[in-house]
Structure formats: C-alpha cells, structure tokens
C-alpha cells in the first residue's frame, strides 16, 4: 500500500470512529431516576382508631356502632364503654353477637395474628371483615390507627 492510500484509509477510519463516537453520545438515555427523601414527622399523627394492641381510648364507642374503637370486646372493655355512657343495655355476649352477625372475625382459632391479611381482610376500618388486632411495628398497625388507606 502506498503512503497516500495508507493516509486515506487511516483518515477514513479515524473519521468514522469520531462520527460513531459522537452519534453514540447523542443517543444517551434521557430517562432519569429521582429519589428524594422526606422523613416522617417525629410528632405522631392523631390516633383515629384504638385497638387492643394500643389500648382502649376512653370516650370512644365501637366502630360498628358509629364510633372509632376497634378493640376486641372483653368484660373490661364493656365496663369502659358503660362508664363513658355507651352500650348501657349491652352485655358481652350481645356485643360479640353484634360482630358475629356482621361476619366480623375477632380472632383466629389458632390464635395467630394475621395483620388483617387473612381472607376476611382488610381491617373493618378499611371495609373488610377482619378485626384482629394489627401486629405492632408494621405499616398496617399504623394505617389502621390513623385510618390511612394505602394505595399501591
């Protein structure tokens, strides 16, 4: 190969490399990833629903009767309702029957927590039929307490 021909080939190769490089750069992705962070406030939000794991909030009546209490019925709870002027004509059996008539599950036979993910779920405050006390430290626990329904 003579010198001129060699320079032509070399020049051509270099030019095509540069053009290829530039066109490659031009096709750089335009999709960007954003990951901002905003922490949860350190002040707890308002407690809307009380349930067994949290403890009964005085002055509230059962959710099924228009209140915000979703505590599992017990004699002690009924006394608290009576003391607050609610369900005066109810005994424990009648209150439990109110839940049963509505098909609401208060506890599972095996005693395990389902965190309202069982087939009767979600929690009654979100329109389901499960009233098993949510598991401490989970998001469902907090969502039920604040009444915030997650959207996925």
């Amino acid at each position, binding site marked *: 190969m003579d010198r001129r021909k060699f320079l032509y080939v070399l020049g051509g190769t270099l030019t095509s490399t540069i053009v290829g490089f530039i066109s490659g750069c031009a096709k*750089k*992705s*335009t*999709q*960007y*990833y*954003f*990951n*901002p*962070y*905003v*922490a*949860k*406030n*350190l*002040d*707890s*939000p*308002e*407690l809307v629903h009380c349930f067994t*794991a*949290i*403890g009964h909030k005085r002055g509230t009546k059962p959710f099924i009767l228009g209140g915000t209490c979703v505590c599992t019925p017990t004699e002690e709870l009924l006394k608290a309702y009576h003391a607050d002027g609610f369900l005066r004509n109810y005994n424990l059996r009648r209150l439990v029957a109110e839940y049963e008539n509505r098909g609401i599950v208060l506890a*599972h036979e*095996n*005693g*395990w*927590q*389902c*965190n309202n*993910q*069982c087939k009767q779920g979600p929690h009654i405050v979100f329109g389901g039929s499960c009233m098993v006390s*949510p*598991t*401490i*430290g*989970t*998001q*469902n*626990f*907090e*969502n039920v*307490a*604040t009444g*915030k*329904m*997650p*959207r*996925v």
Partner: protein
Amino acid sequence: MRCMRMMVLAFSLLVLLASGAFANFVHKDVPDDSNAIAFDQRLLLLQAHEEYIWPDAIYSQQQINAQQSNMIKDGWIAHNLSFTLKALPREDNNFVLPLLNRGLLNYSTGNYDKAYRYLLNAQMSMEDLKQKSMTLAGERAKIFKGEHYERAMVSFYLGLMLYEKGDYENARAMFSRTLECDRETVPDQKRLDKLAKQYVRNIDGGSEQEFINIYTTLGNDNRLAYYMLARTYKKLDQHRDSEISMDHADDWQDVPAFVKEESCGVFVDRADSFDIRPPSGNPYAAKERLEKDNLVVLIQMGFAPAKQASGWEGRKDILAPREYPERKAVLYIDGERVGEAYPLFNLMHQAAPTVRTTKDTAQTGKAAGKFAVGIFAAVVDQFIGTDLQGVVQDKWSVAADTRRWGSLPNEFKLISAQVEPGLHTVTVLFYDQDGNPLPHYEQTHYFIPAKKDKETFLVLRSLRDKCNTVRDFYGSKMQSYNAKKNEIVFNAGDLAGIQVGQDLDIIAFDLGDEKLNQQFMKEGYVQPGFTKITFLKQRFDQQYKQSTVTRVGVARISNLTKSKAVCTLVEGNLDPKKTYFITNYNLPMPVIKDENNYDTLQKGI
C-alpha cells in the same frame, strides 16, 4: 405590571412556606401511595405476582437461555431461585426456597399466621426429607435443604413468632432446635483432627486442643438464640436456665483465618469487613435488663451472604458477602436518644466456620470424572468425527450448589429499654461503617405501646425507603421546548403507561450545587436496557443528599408515537435555557425538599 408579578410571586412563596412545603410533611399530607404507607402492601404484591424478594439482580430467561456455559447458567438459575416467591410443587427440588422467602415476607408484613405455616412446612422438609441418591449432575439437582445456619434461622423465626404469641414452651423448643442446628458447625472427628493439625501448622504455639476448643465455641455461639432462650426461660420461671443462657448470649469466638479463607475464597477480605468482632460485654445480656426493660427492639440488617461457584469446573461453593451500607443503628424514643443497638448476631460469622468434607470430595470426584469423560470423548471424536467433547463440556455441569435463602438478613442488633407506660414514637437512625448517616434507611414508628407489666417486642428490618414519605420516580429529560408553539417534546419510551390527553408534571431538579447538578445530568440517567438502579440509589445516599424537586408546570400530551411525545404546556412558564424533566408521578406537593431527622435528633444527644 412587573411590580404586580413580583407581588404575586412573593405571595405564592409565603403561601408555600405557610403550608409547610419546606418543612416535614405532616401526616395528613403524606400521600397514600408513599413508601411510609404502602411499602408492606407493595411487598405483598410481589408475593401475589410470584416475583422476587429483595434480589440484588435477577437474570431474565433470555439471558439464561443465551448463556453458553452451563456452569454460569446454573449459577444464574440458583441465584434467581434464592429470591423467588413463585410457589413450586413438592416434586420440584427447589420447592423449599419459595416457602422460606414467603415465610420471611409474611413475617416482615406482620402476618404471623401465614409466616408460621410457610416456615414450619419448610423446616419439616429441610430436616426430614431424604435425598434418594447422589447425583452425577450439578448439586442443584438435589432437593434444597439449606446449610446448618439457614436451618437454624428457620427454627429461630418459628421460635420468635411463638414467643410473641406467648407460647413459651414451644418457643423454648424452637430456640433449642436453633442451637442444635448451630452445633452442626462442628465437623466430624476425623475432619476436626485434620483441621486441628492444619491449625497447629499455621499458628505458632497453637495446639490441637486449642483448635478443638475454638470449634466447640463456634458450634455453640448462636447468641441470638441464647438471648431469646434466656427471655423464654424467664417467662417459664426457670431462672437458673435463663441465667445460663444469658451467659452464652455474650460468647464470641473468632473464626480461624485459614478456615475462613477456605470457606470464603477470594472474598475473604470482604467477609472480614462484614464479620466484625462485637464489643465485649453485651449490655443487654444482664439479668436486671431482662427483668426491668419493657421495650425490646431487634433490628434485622443487611442481607445474608451469597454463594458463588469457585475452583475447577465451579465444583466448590464459596461464601460471598452481599454488600449493604447500613451497619450501625441508634434508637430514639419520643425524640430522646436511648443508645446504639448492640451487634448481637451475624450470619456471616455463623456461616464462615462451615467445613465441607463429603460434599467437596464428591464434587472433586465429579469434576475429575467430567475431565476423564471429556478426554475419552475427544478420542472418540477423532475417529468418528462427532463433537462429543463439546457436548460433555456444555451439557454436563458439575457446578456446586449456590442456592440459598436469599431474603435472610445478615445481622441482628439488639436494644432494650425501660420506658414509661403509654404510646411512644420509636425512631431508628442508621449509619454506614464510617458513621455517615443514611437518611433513606431512617425509620419512625408511631403508637408503639409500652406497658408496666408486659414487655413490647418490636422486630424491625432495615430496608431502604421503608419510611420515606415520598416515592422514587422516573423523569424524562425534556428534549425541546418551543415557546412560540407552546410545544414540549420528550422521549415517550421513558415513561410507562402514558396516554394522549394525560397531564404530566414538569419538574426542575436542584442539588444546591452547580457542580453536583452537572454531575447529575452526566450520571443520573438510567442505562438503556439496564434495570438495576442500585448504583443510582447509592448516589442519592452519598452525593445527592440535598435534592429539591420543584413542580414548575404541567404538560398535556397531544401526540404520542413510540419514540416521541409531543405536549402542550397548559400551566407554568418555562425558561428555554434551563433543563426540565417530565414525569408521570403526581408530585404530592409543589416542592419536595430532602428532609431527614438526623440533625434534629443528633442535636439532642
């Protein structure tokens, strides 16, 4: 006119400030699809769709099919299986893996009913199923039964759930079973003697008895199980047993270097950085703490070590620690610092002393067999012109079994405290190994009850963005803006599921520093066809900590092709010289400014 504009701008700014746009969200403003509300629900969706849980990568079927080397192919399949949630029939050799992953997923989301059933099923299968015979193929052809440390963890989680349920007798049995699994760390006598001789050769002044003592401790050092056993015995009023268990909850023995080198191979240095000797004297393993503390927090951190095929024909599996940034955790209750969580348990430390004898010998035999058959096939090929050697090489994999319980954490940190009865806000701040804060890992939990006569047991897992009140999202860099036509163009392929007529937010992104902004423009994009965004997340952890996302306008899509989306600007004014992004994430507020609780809480130290 100009003055009027200025006044409107100043008024808008005041309204923004007053509405708290630059401060933390108040709870009512937290969108219902934020991670802080919906993280667990998204996890459950993974299970419903039979996807994978917390993988570092997943290999597509196309990638696996295109892979020529059977050894690599086997490794990729094993990797995918380690994170799978897809239910498998009992006849499948891998059917235990989805049970384990589903068990842990349901435990994390608080469904103990399902978690217990999945893990109990897995435990029975791992301990009772018998392998029919040895296989000439790769180890993956066998039923997955897990390593001793994985079997130990199954029993541990079962024990933990029983303990939380109040079934202390059965919890005790499960924690004791955890310890039995740990004892499988100690190899048989013949192998132990051989290793002891190796130890004497390696260590000046070391004796065989010393090595045997080391292994006796290593086979009885599941501090997590001992701690829980101590609590359980106390509940059962067996105080002497509780004290004995408590003493063991402080045991620690370094793994001899040559054993670690054997089990971790080229990853030995990384293994050292993930298996750090804890400070001596576990402050929570004390009788008084056990009796008085009414809030116990266990924090699961990181991910269990992976396994990789190594050596000739990939016949041996070695432990490869999986990277994770969060290494320290500090607990705050109602904004008051309680203390740093104590490193109670490390799975890497449990896995490292694993000595394989029979398995390694069998694997070496298989590799040698494959080599011999390969030579024979080459000779045959010479005579009859076939490619038997290629077939042997490609189709016969003797690769080691690298399947594992992928969703397991690597560390358990413990902290307990005596707390006033009532409802409390619990915050955990996470730090990397050098003490740098990791805001994306911060967790705050509201309404945690503390009672006078009953302990509250809180088990958390450090997961990125679990308590982030805003979501991560994708944006497309605006390609052009024609002010005269009021027309915006961007790459339609960047945003999924967009439609003609849809309104999209136009955003400006600022990192508070021009150099960083430029760096983001150069490096913040997503590689086409490359779905792993871990490294982009790391940049938000390390460099992009002061980001501000501002909604500057709204664009309505008027024309859509595969490659191009043409929009009309329907709200806002754009500066043609500035860079903007289009997104289909509906910003929950006009300005999202990075906010964490580190400064607020640390000032209180």
